[in-house]
């Protein structure tokens, strides 16, 4: 068992849990787009940042990958957390202004508009949930990330129609922004 403090409340939980897991189990709200309880944590969207007040790595940390440990003191609502989160929302909104799920989540945190404009608009925020679902749940590995940086995208190898995709739809199901559509094949 591990004893630690989250938003001034003491918790005693099992070993090996992440801050995000404990928070979600106890009704502490932390926004996230790349986390799913049944998939490996990935730490990509950076919306779930919390502030480690006391612990091995003080400062802002992604709660989905940071494991709780004895004596850890965490806060989810400091100015530092809020301000950086607002801008991460703005960056995501600039990229995907048409994603309903993203806009709704951002609104919950008071962000309705991004100061930043960006020309390449789409719905995919590259959270990688689909990639992990395909690998870990469906165990097909039909899709993965291709290219890097701003060119990064999720795709099948060489962008060809996949021979190993079984059309299970797990990727579309976990997608937090509605970027994957399923088409009926003839």
């Amino acid at each position: 068992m591990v004893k630690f403090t989250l938003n001034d409340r003491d918790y005693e939980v099992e070993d090996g849990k992440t801050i995000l897991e404990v928070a979600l189990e106890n009704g502490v709200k932390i926004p996230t787009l790349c986390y799913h309880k049944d998939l490996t944590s990935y730490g990509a969207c950076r919306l779930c940042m919390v502030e480690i007040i006391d612990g091995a790595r003080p400062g802002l940390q992604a709660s989905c990958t940071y494991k709780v440990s004895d004596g850890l003191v965490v806060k989810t609502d400091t100015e530092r957390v809020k301000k950086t989160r607002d801008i991460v929302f703005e960056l995501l909104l600039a990229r995907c202004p048409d994603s309903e799920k993203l806009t709704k989540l951002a609104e919950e945190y008071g962000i309705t508009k991004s100061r930043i404009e960006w020309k390449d608009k789409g719905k995919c925020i590259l959270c990688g949930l689909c990639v992990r679902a395909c690998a870990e749940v469906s165990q097909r590995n039909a899709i993965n990330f291709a290219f890097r940086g701003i060119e990064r995208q999720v795709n099948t190898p060489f962008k060809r129609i996949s021979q190993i995709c079984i059309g299970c739809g797990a990727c579309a199901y976990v997608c937090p922004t509605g970027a994957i559509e399923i088409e009926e094949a003839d």
Partner: protein
Amino acid sequence: MAKLKSVKEFEKLHKQLTGKKNPKKPSIAVCAGTGCVALGATGVVDAFKKEIKRMKLSEKVELLITGCHGFCERGVVVLLRPEGILYQRVKPADVPEILEKTILNNEIIERLLYEDTVTGKKIVHEKDIPFYKHQDRLIFGSNNQINPTSIDDYISIGGYSALARVLSDMKPEAVVDVINKSGLRGRGGGGFPTGKKWEYCRRAEGDIKYVIINADEGDPGAYMDRSILEGNPHSVLEGLIIGAYAVESTEGYIYVRQEYPLALEHFTTALDAARKYGFLGKNILGSGMNFDVKIARGGGAFVCGESTALMASIEGRVGEPRAKHFHTVERGLHESPTVLNNVETWANVPVIINKGWEWFSEIGTDRSKGTKIFSLVGKVNNTGLVEVPMGTTLRQIIFDIGGGIQNNKKFKAVQTGGPSGGVVPESLLDLPVDFERLTEAGSMMGSGGMIVMDENNCMVDVAKYFVDFLKDESCGKCTPCREGLIQMSEILKDITEGNGKEGDLELLEELSWVMTETSLCALGASAAFPFLSTLRYFRDEYEVHIKEKRCPAHVCKALITYTINAKKCTGCTLCALKCPQDAISGEKKALHEIDQSKCIKCGICVDACKFDAVIVD
């Protein structure tokens, strides 16, 4: 070449090899590092081989084809021993004369000597040339003494004696202790204490442990790691084997970028030779230690130099970083405890073992020990690789060793630490260079890149260059790095193109802050440094770009125009002849004019005009 079965057998071989050496025998060391090869070293080597044969000198003189000597500006560099005469900018045509005059008749060839940029005097000996005189080449100094493909050469200058000593006299803990006490810190950028890293890995539990050489060296303009691997591969390998002994590892890797073919070739040769002698393999020198090294080749992605991305890449996965909530010393390659050190860090290890931690820790500053190799490039007279004790000032490096700024221009700033480093302005030239001091100045040590800039460098353009580099090299995994960099890049582009607007700097600062605070790895977390440090020291330059739409350094093309001064133009027509766009017109002996719609602002007319009549503003 027989396998050495004990330390005694090694010592015998060492004696034999040193005994064979005749220090009085003339030798010709031709630099054949990648820089000099680009300048024609292969032709020079061939000419020496041919002429030595033709003149029947092979008994009298030894030809040594070596790795980089560091003085890349003056390649091809040829060093003549025993006198230590240095000839620079040697061409194949100079070779017969060198043999005839200098080797046979002790005559100096003035033409090939280095001329001091300040005094104009010719200097005969390498040791008197300011570029070398002010250096302390602990690590790099052996490069010009050995043929890097010969293990015997390395042994003859004391190579592998540190390993022999460790295997015969020291417990693994004692080795860690020596490295700890020496104060050695990682040369790959972070400056993490090497001994501590080894200690944590030693303590970590695991059936197998790995040691890795990081030879990814992705910083633009940096090439010290390449030059060590090319010029003295065994020194790095010996360090690695000692590290493996210390943490009880049986398997090592070198992660080397695909773009380094010569380094890879020399290191592969070194591995083969070390296996034959039994420095690698089973029961090394009869000590019971088993260890071997595999080569992993990287595709040249900058981010693959980052520890977790590098290990993912070795495992055959996409080279992208993961959260470091557990350290690679505990769970690294294949989830096993792993020590990853930079090429230069490993090369320091045998030196420390041989000379002792006390000796080593005397060199440098209070918290940064030993020397550091810098690649000194940009607008400096003596570009090349420079090794100095930590704590040497920037002024000493740039002016005493580097010979000052090209064409007597004015120094403006030096960019240190690679793409995520920062600029240091003139007011801080007396800063002693070490890990802490560079960080305090808003830059960093990084892996040792040093790009010197003069009055013709625009600081906004510099920031844009590095931000664009990092934008292209970001793996794209996390939001702040991927999206933040593209936004920064766009805003900086606007500023350099005359579309900067009020609020741009504030937004850039906010983005910088978020990237620093929330990025997953150090690439994103330090990606804003080039912007932040140029802003810190050159804010007025940004403001002039945004508010007055001017580029004071005359770099940003959208913000400058070329015109011809009627008073100075003599109508010589030279500019019109040279203009690649046919943008200049005018009769002979009459005033010329530039058609702004055709002008691409390449600056060729400025260089062509002998009367300073082309005005840039």
